[in-house]
């Protein structure tokens, strides 16, 4: 439980930070595809005989992040259509490989995750990732904001928008994949989106947006974890329920303030 609490305290602010940009950049569908790509990542790992498929999951998700970013700049097809087609393909491929000879049940733990099974090694990884994301946010936060507002405007301010977009999506891929065992494929996107979406109901500037998202994320994380312990429910899903509750409350508060 101590490890699970530590992991929650590390992962939730990380997701809140990334989520603010995911929501601002309308990348919610993209992160959903990213989460679902984990299925195929596991499948490829299994085919290659890896004991731990994390590496193949990361390689596939990073390749997906870079690929989508390149495609976004060259294709005229709406990006959500491309992502929809791609998600259908990648999820089907993952399930087909993993369900050979009725073996899919072995992998269902990836779908809902288990934060209580977190290892000290994973916590060390989260610590490193949190430090990297924080440094990245400090160095590239303004450039990301300008890029999200208007890429040409950002480029006129000497921002390398391709580098910014690609590095952000790669970072996103890494965090999503490393956290997937804890939170689960089915709900990982909610954990990214809900704190930021709830914060938007209250905030009028970037500082408040980020601060509220982090507070809401940590609060739902810790409450959800403790409650799931007593209820005997899946921690990730319980956390998401509390985050969804925060969204409803802030939506009402936001309306009331207007």
């Amino acid at each position, binding site marked *: 439980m101590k490890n699970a609490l530590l992991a929650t305290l590390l992962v939730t602010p990380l997701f809140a930070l990334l989520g603010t940009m995911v929501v601002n950049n309308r990348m919610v569908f993209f992160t959903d595809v990213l989460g679902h790509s984990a299925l195929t990542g596991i499948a490829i790992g299994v085919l290659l005989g890896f004991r731990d498929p994390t590496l193949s999951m990361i390689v596939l998700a990073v390749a997906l992040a870079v690929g989508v970013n390149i495609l976004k700049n060259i294709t005229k097809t709406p990006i959500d259509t491309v992502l929809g087609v791609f998600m259908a393909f990648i999820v089907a491929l993952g399930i087909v490989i993993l369900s050979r000879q009725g073996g899919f049940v072995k992998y269902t733990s990836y779908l809902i995750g288990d934060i209580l099974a977190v290892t000290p090694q994973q916590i060390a990884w989260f610590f490193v990732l949190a430090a990297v994301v924080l440094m990245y946010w400090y160095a590239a936060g303004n450039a990301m904001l300008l890029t999200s507002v208007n*890429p040409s*405007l950002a*480029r006129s301010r000497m921002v390398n928008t391709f580098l910014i977009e690609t590095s952000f999506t790669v970072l996103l891929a890494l965090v999503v994949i490393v956290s997937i065992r804890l939170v689960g494929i089915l709900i990982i996107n909610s954990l990214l989106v809900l704190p930021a979406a709830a914060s938007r109901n209250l905030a009028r500037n*970037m*500082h408040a947006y980020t601060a509220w998202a982090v507070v809401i994320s940590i609060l739902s994380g810790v409450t959800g974890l403790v409650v799931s312990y007593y209820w005997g429910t899946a921690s990730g899903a319980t956390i998401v329920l509390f985050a969804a509750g925060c969204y409803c409350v802030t939506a009402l508060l936001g309306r009331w303030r207007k």
Partner: protein
Amino acid sequence: MQKTCEHCCTKIDSLTVRFGDNTILDNVNLHVNCGEIIGVVGPNGAGKTTLLRTILGEIPYQGKIIFRISGHESKKPKIGYVPQKLQFDLSSPISVTDLVASAISQHPVWMGINKELPEKVKSVLSLFSAEHLLERRVGELSGGELQRVLLAIAMTPEPGLLLLDEPASGIDVRGLSLFYQIVDDLRKKHDIAVILVTHDLAGVSSYVDRLILLNRSVIAEGDPKEVLSNEKLVKTFGSSLWNISCLPNLMSSESGKNGDH
């Protein structure tokens, strides 16, 4: 034509831009001196925005774009750019201070605004009658207010070349007149070269030194009155543009400054 210092200019030589088999710009030649406002007009799909994005270095091209600053050739000149519109979700919690500070300062805005920054942002905005907008969300601004905020960003630090993409769209007549007046003052005070892409033929003609009629290549170029009375203009725009027939009247009257469509 405006007298220029002759030490800085932007020279576009035989510029051609292709996307696959489509030629978007074909052999465009253009010379902009400092202190000069060039208006670029043309129908939709004429390559006006592509021209600006090519000058910004976003699009591969054939030909030459030469920037000369203080008599020396410059590979990476400071270019101020005012986009036609912002492509973000209007409900985003981004304040005017956030937007300006993220463009002119290294301090990450998500960490909060430090003590000196509000004064700096305010002083930048005050030059463009926009200092009262500091706390407003960007999505709440009117078209004219947004253009002034974007112009304030584009002018900090002072650029050698200012690119304005369709400032007339989404602005009311009064806001547009104020915007043109500010741009006119800027080039006089700071000797800045301005390329202004617009649909607002009548309104812009009082402020620009030269007008370029672009439709993939330069169809006509010169004094606004001459270009606007050119029969190629009517041919290029077609009769769909309501103010074509009103142009001579608008140009000869002061009220013509404020035309909008």
